[in-house]
């Protein structure tokens, strides 16, 4: 099992360009999350999904869009990248229901916007 994977691992964008980050999981988890991590700060939730076809806003959703067309994939889009979106992006998943709510994280995507 690959667990949680993220594509790409690194990316450099110019201001105004767009891109999509892909998160894929093979654990059959219902909940998926996108976080960003900036230096000296903890992780902040951008958007999340509690199931296929559903999405919701987190703490810092502005400038991002998401889609969950398939249960195993959660896409994070930047329509017009800004230098303030330079960050490390992490995807996480959680099994819905039952006694276990541990979040499992992907390896991260390092994005630089110049």
């Amino acid at each position, binding site marked *: 099992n690959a667990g949680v994977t993220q594509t790409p691992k690194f990316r450099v964008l110019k201001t105004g360009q767009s891109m999509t980050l892909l998160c894929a999981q093979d654990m059959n988890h219902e909940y998926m999350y996108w976080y960003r991590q900036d230096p000296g*700060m*903890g*992780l902040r939730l951008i958007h999340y999904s509690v199931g296929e076809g559903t999405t919701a806003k987190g703490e810092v959703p502005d400038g991002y869009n998401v889609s969950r067309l398939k249960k195993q994939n959660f896409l994070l889009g930047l329509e017009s990248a800004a230098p303030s979106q330079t960050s490390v992006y992490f995807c996480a998943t*959680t099994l819905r229901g039952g006694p276990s709510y541990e979040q499992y994280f992907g390896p*991260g995507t390092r994005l630089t916007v110049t």
Partner: protein
Amino acid sequence: GIQVEQSPPDLILQEGANSTLRCNFSDSVNNLQWFHQNPWGQLINLFYIPSGTKQNGRLSATTVATERYSLLYISSSQTTDSGVYFCAAGGATNKLIFGTGTLLAVQP
């Protein structure tokens, strides 16, 4: 919303020493987790512990929900324990609020 504070912000230990990391949260929670971020950036879940005590090898955690704090104990520290330890708290929706972490450096 919930606020999460961690202390200390930085900690330097000699190999073999013990340490206690603290996490305070501002409201009642039903989800409290500890994570370790290794020097390569990978985040690993250590404990899901909304209340009570758990142990896993040299690590253990205790959450006193009524007093709104959680403690992470590391015994006989090793260099591989180095990294950032995050506490995260949340409610029933599984939306977690992360603290700013404790940076631990274990020296040989």
